[in-house]
């Protein structure tokens, strides 16, 4: 049941519990309990909203920063990651296989703001060897959702 609930709310977290129970064909109380349990277990980590900020007009830039680091003795990469993800400016931090170690995404109001964060805070950390900042020019798809206007229903009524 957990997987079914998660698959559904991953796409639509706003559905109310009663409707979710009907759609899944299970008891409402059971859905409620599972949701609570999964929140407590931190399986469900939040219910954020996917926003296309471009349409609001205000300036906002997102950067993907490739970071190469020296892992810390006894702590591996976790300690380094923690130092980085604690900055509120940082959106996400992933440990990556390949030619660099951490992928950090960052949101700022201007290019300068982001660059400043990288040069003042990120690069100056002891164990950071190098960074490479990639600014996002256009977001086409995010969290499995295509950002363009949804296509209209083009199905035609025909003899059933």
């Amino acid at each position: 049941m957990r997987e079914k609930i998660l698959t559904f709310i991953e796409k639509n977290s706003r559905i109310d519990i009663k409707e979710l129970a009907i759609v899944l064909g299970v008891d409402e109380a059971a859905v409620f309990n599972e949701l609570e349990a999964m929140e407590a277990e931190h399986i469900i980590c939040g219910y954020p909203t996917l926003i296309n900020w471009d349409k609001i007009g205000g300036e906002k830039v997102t950067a993907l920063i490739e970071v190469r680091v020296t892992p810390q003795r006894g702590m591996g990469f976790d300690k380094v990651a923690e130092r980085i993800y604690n900055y509120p400016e940082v959106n996400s931090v992933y440990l990556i296989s390949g030619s660099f170690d951490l992928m950090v995404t960052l949101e700022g109001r201007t290019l300068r703001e982001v660059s400043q964060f990288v040069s003042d805070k990120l690069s100056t950390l002891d164990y950071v060897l190098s960074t490479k900042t990639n600014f996002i020019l256009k977001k086409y798809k995010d969290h499995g959702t295509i950002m363009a206007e949804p296509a209209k229903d083009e199905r035609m009524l025909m003899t059933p």
Partner: protein
Amino acid sequence: MRNPLSKTIVTIEPSGIRKFFDVVSEMKDAISLGVGEPDFDTPWHIRDEGIFSLEKGRTFYTSNAGLKELKIEIAAYLKRHYGLEYDFNHEILVTVGGSEGIDIAMRAMLDPGDEVLIPQPSYVSYLPCAVLANGTPVVIELKEENEFRLTKEELEAAITPKTKLLVLPFPNNPTGAIMERLDLEAIAEVVREHDLFVLSDEIYAALTYQEEHVSIASLPGMRERTIVINGFSKSHAMTGWRLGYACGPQIILEQMLKIHQFAIMCAPTASQYAAVEALRSGDEDVEQMREEYNGRRRYLLHRFREMGLQCFEPYGAFYIFPCIKEFGMTSEEFATRFLNEEKVAVVPGTAFGECGEGFLRISYAYSLNSLKEALDRLERFIAKLRNDR
């Protein structure tokens, strides 16, 4: 000038609800629950394969019966899902949608005067196809109290010495009814006893919500007297690709192939390549879509129960068929008023045969949000009707 028309074709009525649909398509802000095709796009990997086949310049005819790879995949698909075994070489024919299969099967099997049993409510093309094949259609009216399944008694009552073919349209459009193994066994017994043939239209087979669909052809002694019609339109959301298939004993398939060969040549080539991909790695897509339809189905049923609207639980296709007899209106009156007053389009049950009177076909090939809005309006509408009485 002489009359340019054939006597047969002019006896066939055009679809009666055309006018109703014309009104719907002109009403801009109407929510439609009238469309009978999936709301999903064809899964991308399948579309991609279609594009790839065009890029590679595969723009020629295939062999008449269809691409060998596709027929092999169809045979494998039918085996793994329904336990049906067909020889891809002689017993499978790739057609332009399931509809072509229905047409050519009837033309290959009927002589003037042969009676074709057509259970209704059902898809609108069986009757005209039977007439065009010189057959005599005989309607069997299915009943809500049997959940619109065909019973042995109903079948027996319709059989005459002239009866040759039984159309078996399950999972059913428009009722959503299915036939389970036990139901089919009872029918099969009668079919064998009276030496009839079956045209089993299983285009919605993949959309069955209880257990896996059972094909009548998988029952003992039925394979040699059954033509199975299936296709990609509903299962893989591929309506526009126009691709289906017919399976059955070689003796009938050979003759069907002849008609197909002369009238059609072959099914669209790009569609056939896309369909190979659909069968090789599309099972998961089908499962996902089915889950989604199933959630909507449960939601609609729940809402009907809440508003006290009589409706049997449908276990197949993507239609639900509520009864509106309590309002003392014909299906068409109800649908027209509902459209005008609440701007929601549903199809009157009578579009699928006279015995659809008193019912509506509601398609749930729509997003949950659209269904919610439409059902809120329906709830308001019937509250008003009950109040006025």
